[in-house]
């Protein structure tokens, strides 16, 4: 040791300064070639002899002698199946320093790393690592690849969300250290938000997508994609008007850049918003327009989704025969393209139609068939949904015991999957089947209340804005709380008047003048609302 590092550490004013002093001191103890190897090895997430040689621009035979010393350093560790890596704390310190003091060198090392990854692309992880290095070596091209590689990986036939996640996490390292230009930051946020949405972290997704808008990046595809995705998230968060504005904005950009698929997807999504707001005539027009666009570009899945949605609208207008024909037609397309989920959804929709027409045995057969498909698809939540409908059939047939069994099975799945809103709904149905005032019923109410509290926390919304909370309060006989919550739900657009009017949860309060007044107030403010059976042939 030349001098005492402890004295240097004591003089450091910030943790970052201390980390650099420690690293600097540690580097000073190394020979020149080994020090250069440490700087180079910090560039990638992992390295082996070939990559290190490429980074140092030297033949592997010359670099080989450095490997034992390099890999024996206390801040170098083995990396599963890929060689070694510089520990993340030291790596971060080195990269931050290099970026500030010698940016051209950083770009040059990244260029060499990217070239090596492209050459050696058969190795696991090199595709993602290639994009990571390109973002520094050639920022604009790196942002292009962040967009296109992410799109390739998350689409057919790969659906490799794990690799998209790794790519976004790596790009985020650059972004959080201020090494990315704005387009790169934008696409990083986009893929992070995309994964947040897939894994039900909707609020986190929304925050990231809103940050893209703040960046004001001149990249129309990023603008359109992020607005479309933001609309999807807001639709899931039941923020319908915001979702509509996002979709309209995305639609305009997709039209400008001539992206027909993006355009069709936005029109379809606007139809979904209309459906949620009971603007069923408008929804029908959107679905028909989207159907035309999907057919024009030969997108069969989009086509089938539109036909199914048009069937749903027909059913809302009580045009049962047209609905049935649409569902049967959609099934054919889903089968042709091998979408078993679409097929199951159509069969379930046919079951709903049969149930509404009191064709109970046929409804049961359809639901059982859909259940089998959902089970094969391995999605327990979809299974739970159709299991609950089998409960509805049993209940309609007067077989309460069988109904209870179905509802309990559905509740067990929702409980296991932490699907709290759906769980609370099942628990309320089970409570309605329990003896009035029994301990069993009280226990079900209690669990439903706990589930709703968790759901409100997840959605970051007041408990009162959850419709099932209003129903729970009505069940419990707490009329003030029930009506207050229902008012909050109607104001937030989380439920429509027609739904409350047909929902048996409100039977006990149906003649209460306060409920009647509340529904009257919101009925008059509904815009172009369509109740089932209000229009159409039924």
């Amino acid at each position, binding site marked *: 040791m030349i001098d005492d*590092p*402890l004295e240097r*550490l*004591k003089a450091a004013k910030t943790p970052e300064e*201390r*980390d650099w002093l*420690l*690293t600097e*001191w*540690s580097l000073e*103890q190394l020979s020149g070639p080994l020090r250069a190897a440490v700087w180079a090895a910090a560039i990638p*997430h*992992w390295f082996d002899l070939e990559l290190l040689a490429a980074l140092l621009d030297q033949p592997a035979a010359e670099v080989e002698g450095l490997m034992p010393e390099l890999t024996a*350093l*206390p*801040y*170098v560790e*083995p990396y*599963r199946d890929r060689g070694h890596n510089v*520990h*993340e*704390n*030291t790596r971060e310190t080195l990269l931050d320093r290099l970026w500030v003091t010698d940016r051209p060198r950083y770009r040059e090392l990244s*260029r060499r790393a990217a*070239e090596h990854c*492209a050459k050696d*692309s*058969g190795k*696991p*992880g090199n*595709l993602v690592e*290639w994009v990571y290095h390109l973002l520094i*070596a*050639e920022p604009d091209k790196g942002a292009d*690849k962040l967009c*296109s590689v992410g799109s*390739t*990986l998350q689409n*057919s*036939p*790969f*659906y*490799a*969300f*794990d*690799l998209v*996640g*790794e790519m976004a*996490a790596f790009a985020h390292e650059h972004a959080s250290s201020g090494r990315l230009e704005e387009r790169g930051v934008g696409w990083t946020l986009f893929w992070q938000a995309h*994964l*947040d949405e897939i*894994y039900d972290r909707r609020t986190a997704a929304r925050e990231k997508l809103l940050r893209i808008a703040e960046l004001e990046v001149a990249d129309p595809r990023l603008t359109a994609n992020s607005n479309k995705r933001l609309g999807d998230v807001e639709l899931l968060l039941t923020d319908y008007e915001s979702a509509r504005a996002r979709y309209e904005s995305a639609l305009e950009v997709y039209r400008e850049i001539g992206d027909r698929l993006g355009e069709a997807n936005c029109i379809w999504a606007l139809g979904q918003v209309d459906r949620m707001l009971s603007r069923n005539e408008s929804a029908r027009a959107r679905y028909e327009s989207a159907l035309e666009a999907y057919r024009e570009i030969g997108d069969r899945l989009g086509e089938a989704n539109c036909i199914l949605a048009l069937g749903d609208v027909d059913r809302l207008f009580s045009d049962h025969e047209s609905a049935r024909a649409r569902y049967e037609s959609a099934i054919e397309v889903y089968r042709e393209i*091998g*979408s078993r989920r679409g097929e199951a959804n159509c069969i379930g929709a046919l079951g709903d139609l049969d149930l509404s027409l009191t064709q109970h045995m046929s409804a049961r057969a359809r639901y059982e068939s859909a259940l089998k498909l959902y089970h094969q*698809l*391995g*999605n327990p939540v979809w299974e739970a949904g159709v299991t609950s409908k089998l409960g509805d059939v049993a209940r309609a047939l007067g077989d309460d015991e069988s109904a209870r069994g179905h509802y309990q099975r559905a509740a067990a799945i929702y409980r*296991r*999957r*932490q699907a709290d809103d759906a769980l609370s709904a099942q628990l309320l149905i089970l409570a309605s089947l329990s003896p009035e005032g029994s301990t069993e019923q009280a226990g079900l109410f209690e669990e439903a209340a706990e589930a709703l509290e968790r759901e409100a926390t997840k959605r970051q919304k007041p408990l009162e804005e959850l419709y099932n909370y209003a129903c729970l309060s009505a069940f419990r006989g707490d009329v003030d709380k029930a009506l207050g919550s229902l008012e909050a739900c109607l104001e937030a657009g989380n439920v429509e008047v027609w739904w409350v009017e047909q929902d048996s949860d409100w039977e006990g309060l149906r003649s209460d003048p306060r409920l009647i007044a509340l529904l009257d107030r919101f009925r008059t403010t509904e815009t172009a609302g369509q109740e089932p059976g209000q229009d159409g042939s039924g």
Partner: protein
Amino acid sequence: MTSSWPLANYQPERELVRGLCATGCDRRILLLRGASGVGKTSLLGACVEDLVARDGEIFCCPLDLRGSSIDGIFSGLSSRLGRDRLPRLEADMAADHSVRVSMDDVRLLGKDQQINVNLPASAGPEDRRRRIEARTERIFDDLRALPRPLVMSIDHYEKASGEVSDWIEGSLLGRVSNVEQLRVVVAGQTVPEPSSVWGRCWQQRELYGVKEADDWLPVVEGMGKQLPTGQSGWLAGVCHALEGHPGKIMKLIVNLPDRGSIH
């Protein structure tokens, strides 16, 4: 850190890992959370060495989640336990097929190149989920039939992709309470959020580094290093300044002069 360096302290945590091997162990999930550099990887490395030494009593499968996929986890289990012990999983994996991803327009340093990677193919997101769920069922059928306990030691949880962390929290840890042979250690800067589905079979420890100079003295001696003479508080000063972070403290210790080199 590599496990070739001696580990300072963390004895209570090592005991907890040893306890996972006990017959009838009821707390079969151990979560170890700590900031970067507190020595989680070294601790797990040392524990894995302990466990490997008990080959014959238990199976041990270390997994590093950096750059890992669920398929990678399945393959890791298969190669660690041996294909014959996971017959249902092996049959399922044999049916896999992969598709080549090609990225053109890879022009660097004036040369045209093409990126080619083989990845497993799925018929859609649902198909991918179904395949993972089905494979999970098969692997758990296999694990239930193991003749002795399996300890899965999972490192770098914070680096797991959303798909992998979802699988660990839900599919893996959610089933531990029903599979007596399975014991799981998860270490990371973040760890899975305990769920009611896990029952009471989990425990969690926070790691804050090794701050006592007394714990580091055996390491210094074991490495044959010489502390600065006439500075009795030097090691304590280092531990204090570096907040007990093993990675940082080791940077200094490794560069101390060898014992006997100063007279």
